[in-house]
């Protein structure tokens, strides 16, 4: 039986893991390679690395880090942050990334999704959608949540899937960093509207939140950062809990 995936996310800044609250106030959470290896041991199903300060000058540093990660971990991992072109993606895949994620650049130029899917296959194209509730509608926001757009999250999810995205990573900016639970409504809406997997992100604080997002919102995977980094919820313990809740997990 296909299992639900638990995905720790590592936000990377200048080669270190950091985690902010509502994308602000960064605090240090250690060496990404060390942390990644710990997650593999603990039974994480996949990892996501988001370079939150990715700039052109720093791309070489990121590529080197990706190579270092690839030589150490034996589960799939996604790399995102500052990816604008087919060439950016090629560099990351050549250095061992299994998937890449695009966010702002795809909103600005949606054809990028088609180009990446055509060139590298849909299986490695994750479209990250940051959603914010504006006048009671879930809207897409970009640039790490700072810039509003005129796209609804649902329309953009459908379009990204149609253009060849292999998965969607949906982050609720309302819930991110709050530890009050995932945004169940928009996760469910999108998961049921597209035929590709949806990774829910933002708001995990308890083990029950994970159970809810799988059972009530039909997410295919759930992503979290700080609760895993600081061992508030160990990955292994979370999976045992989910198994008791009769949610299929890899143990």
């Amino acid at each position, binding site marked *: *039986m*296909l*299992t*639900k*995936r638990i995905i720790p996310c590592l936000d990377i800044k200048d080669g270190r893991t950091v985690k902010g609250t509502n994308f602000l106030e960064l605090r240090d959470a250690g060496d990404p390679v060390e942390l990644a290896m710990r997650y*593999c041991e603990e039974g994480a*199903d996949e990892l996501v690395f988001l370079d939150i300060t990715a700039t052109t000058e720093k791309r070489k540093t990121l590529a080197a880090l990706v190579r270092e990660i*690839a*030589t*150490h971990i*034996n*589960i*799939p991992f996604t790399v995102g942050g500052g990816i604008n072109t087919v060439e950016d993606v090629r560099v990351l*895949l*050549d*250095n*061992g990334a*299994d998937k890449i994620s695009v966010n702002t650049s795809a909103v600005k130029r949606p054809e990028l999704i088609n180009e990446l899917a055509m060139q*590298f*296959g*849909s*299986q*490695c194209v994750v479209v990250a959608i940051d959603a914010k509730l504006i006048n009671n509608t879930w809207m897409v926001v970009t640039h790490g949540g700072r810039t509003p757009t005129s796209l609804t999250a649902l329309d953009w999810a459908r379009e990204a899937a149609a253009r060849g995205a*292999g*998965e969607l990573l949906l982050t609720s900016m309302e819930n991110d960093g709050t530890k009050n639970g995932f945004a169940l409504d928009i996760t469910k809406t999108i998961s*049921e509207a597209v*035929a*590709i*997997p949806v990774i829910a992100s933002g708001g995990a604080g308890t083990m029950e939140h994970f159970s809810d997002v799988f059972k009530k919102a039909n997410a*295919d*995977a759930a992503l979290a950062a700080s609760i895993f980094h600081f061992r508030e919820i160990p990955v292994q313990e979370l999976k045992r809990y989910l198994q008791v809740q009769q949610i299929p997990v*890899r143990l």
Partner: protein
Amino acid sequence: MKTVIIKYNAGNIQSVLFALERIGIQAVVTDDAEEILAAEKVIFPGVGEASTAMQYLKERELDKLIVSLKQPVLGICLGMQLLCAYSEENDTSCLGVFEQVPVRKFRNKETAFKVPQTGWNSIQQLKGPLFTQVKENEYCYFVHSYYAILNEFTTGTTEYIHPYSSALQRNNFYGVQFHPEKSAKAGEQILKNFLTL
């Protein structure tokens, strides 16, 4: 011992290269016929679309070369599918090592099943040397929209919508639908088993 990875237009070969490196094997990525023929082990990976991959192989006559190989060959994901007889993906005639075995598309009658299948699923009814020290119902990582039906060469099965072949073997030809290079310790064991055949 020399291990080669067949170079063609279906990536992502890097992941396989890194996985082999993690278990201490330096493989060579090549499309050179002599080098492939001389190798002790041949890995035929692949992620991508069947018809363009077959066309590429034919143009370089790699299709004839692959089916003639006598050493152990491991097809991974699309590589395994291309070793079958036929794929529904753009109505493609494949290499036919796994004689008469068709590759079909997952049809999700219920929305509960997403296509492609993406993630960790279990492998059952394991047979043959590839699965030495791999326990029944072990989890492996899958990403695919097409599958090989159950057939006489099946050495492992998985269930998604319905049961299908997640592993095949015919003589020196092995195929796995999942990605051993991304399947944690179980995947490493399977790669080691192949490399010590």
